[in-house]
């Protein structure tokens, strides 16, 4: 293990590919080039700052000893974190969002993965029509999706609530799952499935032992994407939920009378959790890649 980590430390010092322009020998370059080279990274850093400042606000204001509203800073407190369910309905709405998110993710991931495999692996009549059907929901603004679903639910008189919210979330998640998994399937050598068949695996065995494990990273990415889309959706939910309240809907409605700091607590908690998961996955993947290369 020590040998491995030493090896990886050494490798990381050596750039595997020379950078596009020779950014390394800074000293020998005229000032004008040096400034030119740093414009893009500086701009990018500002862009990332732009993305993160509002996130920082939501986290910071989870520690605010808020009054009626949570818009101005009134002093630091841990009370909100000690009692995240302190505000009425906030935890209920959070629970609803988790339930809706998990169920829609499950359904959308299964349906979308099957479609993605079929679209890449089979050539059939109606393939481009199927592709269009996948593409259309993604290119339709949420407000139109919401309005269409509501018009449909009203016309068949389905009571609005948990089931209509899940049904509509699955709809807008499927397309993203298909696109994500499709990328993974098409990077898979079709000869692998043929090799499995050649080695006496029935189509079902070939799928579970070869195709599925190899698609798993793509499927996991798709599921994560679907969950975050569902968990954070407001517009479609607003149309199809009736009186059922999800977390984003709760926050939006409270915006007029003042959002409780507990909403910031829950949002910050989810942020830290998701960030931790993604960072760990990145680090593990990086370490594994290093180990593979160093052997």
């Amino acid at each position, binding site marked *: 293990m020590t040998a491995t980590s030493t090896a990886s430390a050494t490798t990381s010092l050596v750039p595997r590919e020379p950078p596009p322009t020779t950014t390394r020998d800074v000293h020998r370059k005229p000032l004008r080039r040096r400034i030119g080279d740093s414009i893009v990274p500086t701009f990018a850093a500002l862009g990332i700052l732009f*993305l993160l400042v509002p996130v920082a606000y939501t986290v910071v204001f989870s520690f605010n000893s808020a009054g009626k509203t949570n818009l101005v800073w009134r002093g630091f407190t841990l009370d909100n974190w000690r009692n995240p369910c302190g505000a009425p309905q906030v935890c209920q709405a959070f629970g609803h969002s988790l339930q809706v998110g998990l169920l829609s993710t499950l359904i959308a991931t299964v349906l979308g993965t099957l479609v993605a495999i079929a679209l890449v692996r089979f050539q*059939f009549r109606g393939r481009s029509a199927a592709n269009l059907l996948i593409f259309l929901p993604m290119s339709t603004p949420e407000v139109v999706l919401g309005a269409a679903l509501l018009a449909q639910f009203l016309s068949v008189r389905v009571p609005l609530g948990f089931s209509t919210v899940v049904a509509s979330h699955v709809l807008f998640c499927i397309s993203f799952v298909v696109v994500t998994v499709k990328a993974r399937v098409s990077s898979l050598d079709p000869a692998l499935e043929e090799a499995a068949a050649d080695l006496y695996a029935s189509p079902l065995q070939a799928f579970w032992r070869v195709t599925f494990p190899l698609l798993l990273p793509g499927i996991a990415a798709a599921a994560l994407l679907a969950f975050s889309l569902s968990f954070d959706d407001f517009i479609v939910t607003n149309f199809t939920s009736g009186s059922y309240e999800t*977390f984003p809907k709760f926050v939006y409605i409270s915006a007029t009378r003042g959002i409780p700091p507990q909403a910031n607590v829950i949002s910050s908690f989810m942020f830290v959790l998701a960030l931790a998961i993604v960072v760990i996955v990145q680090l593990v993947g990086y370490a594994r890649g290093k180990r593979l290369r160093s052997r």
Partner: protein
Amino acid sequence: MSITAALGEGGAATGAAPRSLKRSRAHWVLLGPGLIYLVLLFVVPVGALLATSLYVPVPGGDIGQYQPALHWQNYPQAIAQFWPVILRSFWFALLATVAALVIGYPMAYAIAIRARGRTLLQGMLLVLVVAPFFTSFILRTIAWKQILADDSLVVAILHWLNLLPEGARLTATPFAVVCGLTYNFLPFMVLPIFAGLERLDVRMLEAGADLYASPVTTFRTVTWPLSLPGVVAGTLLTFIPAVGDYVNAALLGNNTNTTMIGQVIDARFFKVLDYPTAATLSVVLMAAIMLIVTVYIRRAGTEELL
């Protein structure tokens, strides 16, 4: 799994040998459930939306009671009444898309090209780009309300620099709404451009530098054309949701000169109970977007995105 893998459509496509049509019907088993779902919850509802857009009020009925009809006049009426809002929505979305492109392209370029080969740095930068998605969209929008508030640091600095006239404010202005839209959809711009640039062979840039010498010329003749599919995907992923968005307009604007079409559709549905007009406006919005997207993709020569 990496975020890169999640977004890059294609990757090293090995071009699966297309199989003969006779071979199997397995694909319908795989496609069936998903496509049926999309038909039942997308195609049919859009049909319901079209039908609703032609409804008329029940004569002598209560508010919110409509009956099926083919009242095409709903369209000219709705457009006549709301065309400034529709135009404004497209205008705001266009501004936000351009702003997101200007901010997002250098970010994607820096991550894909400058951080090339440094896997961990690249991964972490991508995590930072998608990090906003891990917190509530609405809370982040509220944060913008705080950042642009009258007594905020940003406004104070702008006053001090005389960039903002005395007494002028940022809250409840078109600027605030476009700023919010740009912010909210920026990651959707960065990621596809990144995915495109990531596949770009750096040796091509070196060859470009060798042939043209000037970095600007190299960018114009090599990098930009090769990144175009990513740019098209990114602009669409930004523009389409931005047109229909009403959270930014409602929370950051909330002013008659910032009203966007989504707010009107929402209000017609829930406050006025005027379903036909809401449906009509939705259909108009969808049709306009389809038209714009088709023309745009054709012009950009990237039909294969479909």
